[in-house]
């Protein structure tokens, strides 16, 4: 599964993209976040305040309960500040 990070999530994690093989039992965005937090101190820092993290699955906004399927593109980023 391709996982992308933007803005300060990317800075804290140290990479903008990871290709990950998820362990069994991760079926939602929220479960993915909980697992990602355990991968490194940088990941833990990036996801330490869940209220500041937005998620997208296949380039559409997704909530924590959104189901994940193999091959999905998942992205995490802060609230947007364009315009």
């Amino acid at each position: 599964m391709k996982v992308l990070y933007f803005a300060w999530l990317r800075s804290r994690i140290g990479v903008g993209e990871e290709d990950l093989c998820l362990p069994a039992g991760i079926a939602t965005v929220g479960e993915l976040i909980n697992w990602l937090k355990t991968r490194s101190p940088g990941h833990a820092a990036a996801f330490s305040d869940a209220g500041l993290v937005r998620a997208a699955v296949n380039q559409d906004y997704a909530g924590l309960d959104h189901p994940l399927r193999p091959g999905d593109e998942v992205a995490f980023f802060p609230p947007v500040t364009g315009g």
Partner: protein
Amino acid sequence: MTVRVQREDFDPGAEIAALGVGGTEIGAVASFVGLVRGGTDGVAAMTLEHYPGMTERQIAAMVDEACRRWPLDGATVIHRFGRLTPGDRIVFVGVASRHRAAAFAACEFLIDWLKTRAPFWKLEEGAGTSRWVEAKDEDDARAKRWQKED
């Protein structure tokens, strides 16, 4: 309908003129141009990061929604990314319609939604430091005005 996400600058006059040639029934073209603000509380420079693919997809969805809500004869949204300095143009929104009320409303709707839904992030450079801009409650409040009751 035109959506462009690009590093290079754009010509607002040319974009406005292009919106007016969609048909003789067009009576109004409304536009908005966003600039990098300098001044005392301003920044030395900023870098706009975006999510290629999702950005275009989300802006196209906003334009579709604007077309459902108002009778539009044309719409153009251009958003830049990369490093920009005070005075640089960041974003262009232009809409064409038969009458001004729809053109004004759709233009404001699009910039309000762009600010809260299009995946862009600003990294500001100040005196030797840089910081990610935080989202503003005020922008969320402006975008919420367009929520439908249904």
